[in-house]
């Protein structure tokens, strides 16, 4: 026991030993903490982006693979059909698409025969794969590969170049019509066009050339057109199905008293109040929008969209939303006080609170789950640069808040989540354009703003605070095959 006496003395003496560090230590500590924060932020953003990219890639792969399988099946089915058709009626096809079937090459040019493959594609496939059909002179291009094609009818009678030219012109006109229709995505008119074609075959010149096969050709043409019609119908049906996507948003968020910061009462600032300290603060002593500074906002979620007309669509989704703001306060008072809250019978106990003032910024964070319902409409005709506007409402549920809020009644700041309105109704508005990444993936990108119609605070006496955020929204949409 005696042995410990020395240690006790030393320990007691050392407990009292304090030294005042130089000011530079705190500056370095502060600098390093902020650097760590920034480093974490930069770590999170690439992780989020890479996660989003990976998810998009795998989804694309999955959808693309299933699409390829369908296409393969369709092509196999068509080639079987063609083979059967040729067997029964080698001189088939009055339809311009099918006309390539009767284009053959001389034995010398067997290798250059590519037209058949291109023109045999079903219209629905052509519509899907726009890149392959954007060249309107498809037929003209094939002439390069077929310098002197010879057209042969059932009776193996050779047809001269003039007839081929006529035939080519007819086919080209027809194809152009289909291509234009595809580009404009006017499915209704396309179906009508095909119907018209079925009813009144318009290439009479060709019909005259192939008078011996007129009846069979018409029948065959009709059957092909019907199959195309069915495929188009399926296409239309698919385009009207629910499509899913990923929504992401990054921007700034703020808490404002009114939309666009329009105020209808006298303007006071924190400084005004502080100069008049000792007086009872009146409601409206401090302008909330001055105290709260905007900070980062982001959201991430999934959505489903349905085309409701040629130009309009409606979408629903579920998003995780995080809004941040900076609140400028004065000094922190670290003592428990009981504050009167109008409407509450019991006084509210607050452990720590902040006085109004300037120089100190606290980061407030609000986390929500959001369910948006958005209507989107396209208002131009450009296929290259389509423009849309969207408007909608969203129901948001506060899941967590780590925020100081300004209690106007007591003129202090404190954190008390129970005084926040958990369910909010928000209005959102945006503009966007769509970029087609692949045949089955498109991105809708544009500015978006969101304003909370509900007051952030339950108690009206604390004043009016509405969440307001704005930024860039990207919606990646995966089309179904």
């Amino acid at each position, binding site marked *: 026991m005696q042995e410990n006496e*020395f240690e006790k003395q030393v*320990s007691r*003496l050392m407990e009292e*030993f304090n030294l*005042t560090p130089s000011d530079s*230590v705190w500056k370095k*500590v502060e600098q390093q903490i902020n650097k760590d*924060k920034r480093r974490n932020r930069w770590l999170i953003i690439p992780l989020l982006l890479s996660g989003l990219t990976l998810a998009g890639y795998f989804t694309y792969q999955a959808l693309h693979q299933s699409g390829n399988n369908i296409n393969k099946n369709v092509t196999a089915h068509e080639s079987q059909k063609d083979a059967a058709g040729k067997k029964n009626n080698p001189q088939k096809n009055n339809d311009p698409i099918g006309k390539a079937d009767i284009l053959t090459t001389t034995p010398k040019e067997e290798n250059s025969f590519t037209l058949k493959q291109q023109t045999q594609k079903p219209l629905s496939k052509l519509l899907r794969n726009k890149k392959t059909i954007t060249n309107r002179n498809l037929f003209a291009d094939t002439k390069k590969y077929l310098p002197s094609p010879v057209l042969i009818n059932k009776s193996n009678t050779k047809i001269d170049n003039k007839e081929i030219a006529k035939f080519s012109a007819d086919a080209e006109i027809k194809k152009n019509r289909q291509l234009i229709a595809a580009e404009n995505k006017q499915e209704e008119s396309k179906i009508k066009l095909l119907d018209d074609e079925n009813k009144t075959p318009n290439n009479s010149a060709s019909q005259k050339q192939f008078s011996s096969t007129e009846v069979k050709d018409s029948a065959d043409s009709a059957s092909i057109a019907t199959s195309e019609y069915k495929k188009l119908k399926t296409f239309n049906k698919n385009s009207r199905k629910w499509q899913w996507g990923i929504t992401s948003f990054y921007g700034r968020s703020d808490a404002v008293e009114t939309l666009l910061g329009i105020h209808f009462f006298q303007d006071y600032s924190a400084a005004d109040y502080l100069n008049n300290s000792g007086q009872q603060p009146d409601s409206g002593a401090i302008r909330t929008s001055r105290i709260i500074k905007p900070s980062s906002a982001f959201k991430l979620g999934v959505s489903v969209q349905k085309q409701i007309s040629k130009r309009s669509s409606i979408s629903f989704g579920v998003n995780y939303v995080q809004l941040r703001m900076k609140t400028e306060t004065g000094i*922190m008072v*670290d003592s428990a006080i009981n504050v009167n809250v109008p409407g509450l019978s019991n006084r509210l106990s607050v452990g720590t609170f902040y006085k109004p003032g300037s120089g100190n910024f606290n980061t407030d964070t609000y986390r929500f789950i959001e369910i948006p319902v958005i209507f989107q409409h396209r208002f131009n005709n450009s296929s290259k640069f389509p423009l849309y506007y969207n408007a909608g409402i969203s129901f948001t549920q506060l899941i967590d808040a780590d925020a100081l809020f300004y209690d106007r009644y007591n003129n202090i700041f404190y954190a008390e989540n129970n005084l926040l309105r958990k369910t909010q109704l928000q209005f959102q508005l945006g503009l966007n354009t769509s970029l087609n990444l692949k045949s089955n993936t498109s991105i809708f990108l544009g500015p978006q703003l969101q304003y909370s119609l509900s007051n952030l605070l339950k108690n009206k006496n604390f004043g009016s605070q509405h969440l307001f955020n704005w930024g860039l929204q990207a919606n990646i949409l995966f089309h179904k095959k």
Partner: protein
Amino acid sequence: MDYNRLVKDCIRGIPIAQRELYEHFAPSMLGICYRYTKSLKDAEDVLQEGFVKVFTSLAQYRFEGELGGWIRSVMVRTALNYLKRNRRYNADFSYSETSLHPVSEENPLVILQAKELADLIRQLPTGYQAIFNLHAIEGYTHVEIGEMLGINEGTSRSQYARSRALLISWLENHSTEVKHQRYAGK
């Protein structure tokens, strides 16, 4: 002071709370860092590193035990890492694996000021200094010290005994000098 509230605010990244925490604990923590190092500049380096660790790992604080104790343990570990990492200390920071050494029985009355005692402790070789601080002041057992420094419990004991004996002899010399000075002064 409501430490729980302060810690929560620090976790939320409120600068004023962080400053508050720093200002409250920095003087005593610098005292600790001072005892483990050989210069005030090094002590401040350890203090800075330690507080960065405190703020970044404050979420791990379970609100069990004193906040000061938790920060202190962070500082001590930071100081030990600093000694191991820094070449100036590393050369002197080795332990010979020797057998148990009897602890000296002397218990002189410490008549020094805190600063003087801290300066005497700092004059010990780095290895002795660390073990003396850990056992005599922080109250760690030799088993714990052995784990912290990666040495045997016996080595810790013997090193401690030597450091203690050395310090006591210095204290005695110091008190003799003081007596002489007083006598001469009279």
